[in-house]
């Protein structure tokens, strides 16, 4: 892709002899694609396709369906159930048609016996059927099953008995058909008098699988809860970024920069703990920290302050906890990046400022901060995308509560699609919510890349070697 083109283009510029005239123009217009370059990037392309492109494409497809636990993920089947017939009757299907389709008619005929013989039903059992039931008719499945069960050679297995009964009757009710054509044919046998158009409508309504729809997006656009989720997400991302990822990260980086090397190394390591601690353990530690009888409530009690479960006991403390849990992890990210950036500032600048009598604050304001623009922009952009799609630590701590007050978009998308107490997993709606995140993420990425002037960063060097 563009990466391979850039790589091969650069390679061509470095190693090839200088082209002239038209050849050079062509070379600049359409960089040559080296086979080696393609081979080298192939693993990355493969991984990108498997773990990014494919999920995004699938999310995009699912987002335009009503897929749920009830419809299943794969292709659906065609089933005419009593409930479906009730619904169709409500929608105007005539009583006669409903009765005709609901009818279960069974008759013991020589043809049926032959079919059963060909189907593998035991000879003894068929002899009993022929001898004792030939010519008999039944108007319910249960009726014929009871009659078959009373025969001396009846199989012990109910399943075998029920399947045997099917050789003697036509009932489409509650049968699962793989295709519309199969059900249409079955219906034409069971209710030949019903109009083909009506049969076709019934077959259409009997589909159990997901259908394509834009309802998910209409739903999201019209629900008041959408705006609450957006507001929660903006507050969460904005507060975590500004207070912790950038604010605290920058403060720590600058503070540690002015500390003796040994001390700063020790504190840097300490601040990395939230990032290197496994997430589940980290969130459990936060529970010990904030729950009833945890460190903070006990401390508050000693100080005469309100002591309760800070993680879940009030909306404000839940928000503070949620932002802090994510923020301390994010702060360590900022710390690493900002520390590296500060150390890249030529020390001579600081020495020179000290010679001029600059204070620490003046050094920070006039020398350090102006040169931190790029790293700050990077942390903001990278962490925005990261925070937008993160929900695990919220799920494991406040779980979006109390009520749904700390529920953010990504958490709601996850719960909608994959985690429901009532078992109603709405894959389609969840995918639509995820797709919105993907689109927002891509849009922000483009904006950030433009702000970074990414083209210049990866552009052809102005001086050719």
């Amino acid at each position, binding site marked *: 892709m563009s990466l391979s083109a850039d790589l091969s283009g650069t390679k061509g510029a470095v190693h090839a002899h200088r082209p002239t005239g038209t050849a050079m123009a062509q070379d600049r217009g359409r960089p040559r694609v080296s086979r080696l370059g393609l081979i080298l990037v192939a693993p990355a392309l493969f991984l990108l396709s498997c773990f990014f492109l494919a999920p995004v494409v699938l999310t995009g497809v699912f987002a335009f369906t009503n897929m*749920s*636990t*009830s419809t*299943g993920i794969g292709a659906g089947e065609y*089933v005419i159930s*009593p409930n479906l017939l009730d*619904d169709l009757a*409500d929608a105007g299907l005539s009583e006669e048609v409903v009765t005709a389709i609901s009818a279960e008619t069974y008759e013991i005929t020589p043809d049926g016996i032959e079919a*059963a013989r*060909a*189907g*593998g*039903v*035991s000879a003894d059992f068929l002899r009993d059927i022929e001898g004792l039931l030939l010519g008999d008719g039944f108007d319910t499945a249960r009726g014929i099953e009871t009659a078959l069960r009373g025969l001396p050679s009846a*199989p*012990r*297995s*109910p*399943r*075998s008995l*029920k*399947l*045997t009964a*099917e*050789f003697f009757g*036509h009932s489409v*009710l*509650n049968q*699962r058909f*793989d295709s519309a*054509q*199969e059900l249409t*044919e*079955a219906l034409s046998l069971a209710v030949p008098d019903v109009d083909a158009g009506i049969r076709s409508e019934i077959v259409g309504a009997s589909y159990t699988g997901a259908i394509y729809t834009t309802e998910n997006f209409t*739903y999201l656009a*019209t*629900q*008041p*809860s959408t705006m609450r989720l957006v507001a929660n997400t903006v507050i969460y991302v904005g507060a975590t970024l500004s207070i912790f990822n950038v604010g605290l990260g920058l403060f720590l980086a600058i503070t540690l920069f002015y500390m003796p090397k040994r001390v700063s190394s020790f504190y840097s390591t300490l601040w990395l703990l939230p990032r290197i601690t496994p997430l589940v353990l980290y969130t459990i530690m936060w529970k010990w920290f904030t*729950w*009833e009888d945890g460190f903070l409530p006990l401390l508050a009690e000693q100080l005469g302050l309100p002591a309760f*479960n800070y993680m*879940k*006991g*009030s*909306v404000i403390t839940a928000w503070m906890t949620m932002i802090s849990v994510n923020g301390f992890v994010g702060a360590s990210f900022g710390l690493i990046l900002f520390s590296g950036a500060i150390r890249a500032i030529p020390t001579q600048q600081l020495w020179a400022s000290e010679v001029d009598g600059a204070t620490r604050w003046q050094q920070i304001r006039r020398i350090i901060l102006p040169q931190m623009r790029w790293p700050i922009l990077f942390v903001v952009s990278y962490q925005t995308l990261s925070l937008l799609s993160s929900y695990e630590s919220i799920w494991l701590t*406040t*779980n979006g*509560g*109390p*009520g*749904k*007050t700390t529920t953010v978009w990504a958490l709601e998308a996850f719960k909608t699609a*994959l985690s*429901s*107490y*009532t*078992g*109603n*997993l709405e894959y389609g709606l969840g995918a639509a919510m995820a797709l919105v995140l993907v689109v927002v993420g891509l849009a922000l990425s483009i904006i950030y890349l433009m702000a970074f002037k990414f083209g210049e960063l990866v552009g052809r060097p102005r001086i050719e070697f």
Partner: protein
Amino acid sequence: MTITTTFVRRGIAAALMSSVAFAASAQDVTITVWAGGSGEESNYRTEAIVMAADIMEREAAIRGDELNITIDAQLWSGWEDFKQAFSLASEAGNAPQIVVTGHEDIGTWSNAGLIVPIEDYVYFDSWPLNSIYPNLIDVATYNGQIWGVPQDAEARVFYWSIPALKAIGWTDAEIDSLPQRVQDGEFTLYDMLDVAAAMQDAGIVGPEMGFAPRVSNGPDYLQYYQAFGGEMLDAETGKLLLDTQALTDWYQFFADATEMEVVSETYLGTEWDVWHQNVAAGNYGTWHGGTWHYAQWENGFGLEDFFGTVQYTLFPAGNANGRANSITHPLVYLVGSGATEDEAMIAAELIATASEPRINALHAVKSAHLGISEVESTVPLYAENRWLTAASERLAPHANAIPNDPDFGIVWDAMFEGLEASWTGVMSVEDAVAEAEATVTQALGDNVVVR
């Protein structure tokens, strides 16, 4: 029937005919069982299948067959993870052959073809399935087919602290008559709030400890809906029903409860262990839960004198529109559609055997769930259990179940989300009701009746 379908079916039939007696030669089968919402007290949901496998192997040996059944059992303590795992495993073709879940999953899972109707594999007019209460069989029935075998039953209970009631001046006679007064609708949820407030005012229980409802979503909250006159199904059309007046009264009740400060605005989400500890320590004035919580409090949280310290009643009526009620949430054994025909037959037989009264009584007594048949109540272990006998008499006759409609989850989720929003003060009661109504009507259209 088409040629294709006919051939497939006849092929299956042929295969079945040859395996009627589970094969004459040795047969090794592994049956996987998953049980949702099952803690340590509920291990007999899967242990019963292990016991049934032992019996089935012995019966096969007597018939002259060699049948070796290996049971791979897994208990899932929660519901969300369990339902997600079963749904996705089924789609991936790795689902267990037997699954134990709430009956309300039958509608959804049968529609998606994740389960098969168990009535195809066992006779419900034979022992022991013919002994199961007919109303429980109804609960396991959907679209005219019996999909599962009821595994247990239960009732949801309103509990009252006897010491706290006495401390605010209630006499023994008043405490003893409370169950009847609740049942008759004389003592309502609002009377309960007054009692809880009186307990707090008298310092008997701490602030916001007078009333401790369930800490998370669950059928318990649908009892409020019924207590204020709500019905889950429209009697006339059989469709799902959203009663906005009942919803308004229900949400308003919690708004009033928080205003009276007998429960906090941020109560939902309290940890279960914290709730159990407070119940066992007698820290709450009133609370509600299930019959099965009794076993957890006695075995896990050190509650010693339940009958001396706790009065138990139906869930009180909310107002004149509603009724005192209790919701039962029977779990059912289901057979996954990923099972082969042989596995499905063995799984269904195992389920039937596990439903023998003596085996099921082990689960009922250990986990404090109600039995599934009349005859089970005569099993000595069950009959001598005071709590099960008492709950069966006082509560079970008034319990109803939630619908099996596959769309009910949407209504339920919307109702609970509205409750969360109004309870925590994020939305007004009116707005929360309007949003729940909008969600339900937008998602279900004509498939729901809004009253």
